[in-house]
């Protein structure tokens, strides 16, 4: 089990100029460590749509890495997105899925029948180029370099214990954040 804020820090260390789409509990950790908020696409609404937003970005910005910071609770409400991404096969797409060992999004209650969804297996069969899993921080830190170098789409499942419960969502509104990213990308052309 890895503290969720350590996962955010590890991703931030390897981020470079990647665009980051984050949602739900992953967003609460992410916005506290990110040093490029002008390249962060926050999803505080429609949280199950993070992979699809990431796919659109990956097609519009094929020369940048797109990192999607997703959660198990949000992904399992739209598993079909894995098939959509597998079919589109964007090589610049990395999909992190934080699996919350404490089921905090459902107040500690595992959802019967959905608690053991094998996201790695589903991603592989849907056409992702690579899928892997980490439940140890040291292995994640070692593995990140390879993850950021490989052609995607890649799914990285990480078993976490959330430590952002007291953390808030960003004060920046979703609309303001997206407008900031659009300005940053337009200025970069």
């Amino acid at each position, binding site marked *: 089990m890895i503290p969720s804020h350590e996962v955010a820090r590890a991703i931030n260390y390897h981020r470079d100029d990647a665009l980051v789409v984050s949602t739900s509990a992953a967003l609460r950790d992410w916005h506290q460590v990110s040093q490029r908020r002008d390249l962060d696409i926050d999803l505080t609404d429609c949280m199950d749509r993070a992979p699809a937003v990431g796919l659109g*970005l990956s097609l*519009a910005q094929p020369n940048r890495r797109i990192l999607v910071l997703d959660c198990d609770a949000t992904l399992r409400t739209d598993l079909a997105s894995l098939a*959509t991404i597998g079919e589109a096969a964007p090589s610049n797409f990395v999909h992190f899925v934080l699996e919350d060992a404490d089921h905090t999004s459902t107040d500690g209650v595992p959802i019967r029948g959905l608690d053991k969804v094998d996201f790695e297996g589903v991603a592989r069969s849907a056409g992702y180029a690579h899928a892997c899993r980490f439940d140890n921080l040291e292995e994640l830190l070692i593995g990140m370099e390879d993850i950021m170098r490989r052609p995607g789409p890649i799914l990285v499942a990480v078993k976490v214990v959330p430590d952002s419960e007291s953390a808030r969502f960003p004060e920046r509104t979703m609309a303001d954040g*997206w407008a900031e990213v659009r300005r940053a990308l337009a200025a970069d052309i």
Partner: protein
Amino acid sequence: MTTAIPESILHPASLVNELKKNDVSHVVWLPDSETNFLYHMMMEEPTLDLVPVCREGETMAVAAGLWVGGAKPVVLIQNTGVFEAGDSIRGLCLDLNQPLVMLVGYRGWTRRGPTPDSAGRFIEHILHAWGINYYLVETDEDADRISVAFEECERLSRPVAVLIGTEFGS
């Protein structure tokens, strides 16, 4: 004795020409039973990239990602898909002021007679409820309404729908 009046039809080329005229980069869509001719024409058009999805709600999110990344997408779905995509239209189109043209197959539309299909009966009410303006396209002569929709969605920074009220002719 009655004289048969040739019925006007909508050719896929009319729609594709409108997309080209408005510099559309991507068509995010869920194919349905009435879009086969259109699919082949879009596949042959080098300026358009097709992005197929599994569920209509994804179309709005993929389009939002394309838009924030600097591309110019449209979505192409049936009216049943608008119902399925409702929360994404609210959260990712209306609340983000996304200037998106939604091309919507008008299943159940009958210009004359009763409309037994609830998909046809409800769609305009749903668009009214969300404050989404729309234009009806049934024939090649109507196709320039698609450009009107593009002008409006960009001027107002909000989604505008185009209801395709006919099957595509070959």
